[in-house]
């Protein structure tokens, strides 16, 4: 379980909100009817994972503290007449479910993780101990005005994706568990920034030790 190889890495560095122009471009990944239902985070996930070619035996991990925050905000605002669409899209892991359902991508397992400062470390560890040959790790948040103002959501929109294989072929980076390592924790937001600029990262684990991602 100590090592995996990243054969695809893509990232979208944090911004408060994606621009209308970018949103329009991201919608091109989907048919108009499907794209209409997608908020910022699923649109980003769609872009980051579009060249990934997953297999049914693969596993997916989704690491997000707030998930479908825009749908949640809209659902809360729909009371006293709750919206079924915003309800189902607000449920964790709605943003990733939406994309994989649109693309009809059956998989062995999806493990959606939630967390604060230890979220990245926990998600990377989960990827390393998965028995699947290939694990797709998706990280991301979306800005939602009400939630952000109340410290109940992310202040930024960002995303990152790593296709993590047990095989070294075509590797762009190595992911290594260092049981004796020691490092501060890295947030998912910092991770998106680092990966967008192809920089290495090392994050500490709540169980002790660290996980290091080193570009080749």
């Amino acid at each position, binding site marked *: 379980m100590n090592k995996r190889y990243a054969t695809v890495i893509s990232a979208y560095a944090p911004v408060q909100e994606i621009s209308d122009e970018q949103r329009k471009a991201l919608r091109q990944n989907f048919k108009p009817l499907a794209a209409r239902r997608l908020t910022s985070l699923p649109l980003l996930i769609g872009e980051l994972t579009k060249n990934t070619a997953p297999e049914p035996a693969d596993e997916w991990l989704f690491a997000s503290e707030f998930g479908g925050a825009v749908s949640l905000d809209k659902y809360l605002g729909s009371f006293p007449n709750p919206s079924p669409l915003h309800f189902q899209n607000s449920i964790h892991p709605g943003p990733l*479910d939406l994309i994989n359902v649109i693309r009809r991508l059956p998989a062995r397992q999806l493990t*959606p993780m939630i967390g604060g400062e*230890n979220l990245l470390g926990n998600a990377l560890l989960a990827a390393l101990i998965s028995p699947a040959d290939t694990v797709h790790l998706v990280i991301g948040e979306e800005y939602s005005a009400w939630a952000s103002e109340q410290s109940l959501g992310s202040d930024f929109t960002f995303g990152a994706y790593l296709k993590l294989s047990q095989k070294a072929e075509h590797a762009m980076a190595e992911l290594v568990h260092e049981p004796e390592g020691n490092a501060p924790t890295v947030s998912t937001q910092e991770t998106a920034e680092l990966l967008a600029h192809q920089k290495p990262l090392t994050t500490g684990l709540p169980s002790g030790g660290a996980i290091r991602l080193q570009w080749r």
Partner: protein
Amino acid sequence: MSAPTDVFLHACACRTALGDTHETWQALTDGQIALRATQPLPDSDDRVPLALTGDLAECEPPRWLAPSIALLQAAPDRPWGDPRHPIVITSSNFGIDQMLAFHQGQTDACRHRATAVSATQAIAEQLGWGPNRSIISNACVSAQLGLIHAERLLANDLADEVLVFSFDYLSHFVVGGFHSLKILNNDFPQPYSDRETGSIALGDGAGFAVLSRAPSGFRLAASSSHSEFHHMTGNDPSGVGFKAVLAPLAEAANGQRVWVKGHGTGTLEAARLESAAAHAAFPGAPLVSWKGSLGHTLGSCGLIELAIAAEAFRQGRAPGTVGAAAPYVSQNVQGDAFTLDDFYGVVLVSSAFGGAHAGHLLIRE
């Protein structure tokens, strides 16, 4: 797809609208129904079946906090959250009741327990948990994914023991949501009954399990999962998802006599697909669901039903499909309670939004 495990169940308990683990098992075995017709929203003219442990009201402190603490105080005393004793917390609701309350203008205190992280922190602070905690949430397979994650931590020698805890208490947020989807109506659910229309019910509940590699009376002999990603709220009509999650468990059972605790919420299409797949994978195995009494306890159902199943083995008798009546959609559906003298194990499966499925084979050692 199979993930054979060498992981043992050391403690497992639950709280439901019917009481603690033993009280819940006894009431289910006696055919008691915890569901009551309840207003889904404050101004609603409708009534929907809910199995509640208190009033359906968003309040401060949240109504999930005290029962969660009380339940967890029954767990073995360990340095939970230290490097060798990780905790896996699962739910599909966490503190979402507090989020709705705060959004609707209630006290600022609600804001501090409104997210998954802050709700978990509220429990952790009261119990003195350390930081080695992970949170998993995938709707109604959350608890079983938590068990699978715990198995992997143990299999990779990253833990001596793992505490898996799950809690889901209803609020107007989730009841209103299911009601808006038109699958929560004024009809009480009859899982696996062959009816004109289907319906589901919801319930409060929490459960925990302590897993380790040290032998005990129960072993989680295999785990399995599959995500269809066919539709957000429906299953692939071919039944491929149910077949995929059951196949590795059938292989692990190796023809030994088992019973099946299905997902069985009360919807018709899923009932037909699940019962047919269970019949094919485990010919002759009785299939039961307890959601016609307890309601669907959402992300926590996997742990709650595991605790009830283990208690059923201890008592030698399993509850039948409470609340349902013949004719059933399949001949393997077991209506009445039955004795467990000759059974090797039980298959426990759950399903969720996105076509997610997860399952375990629990065997008696």
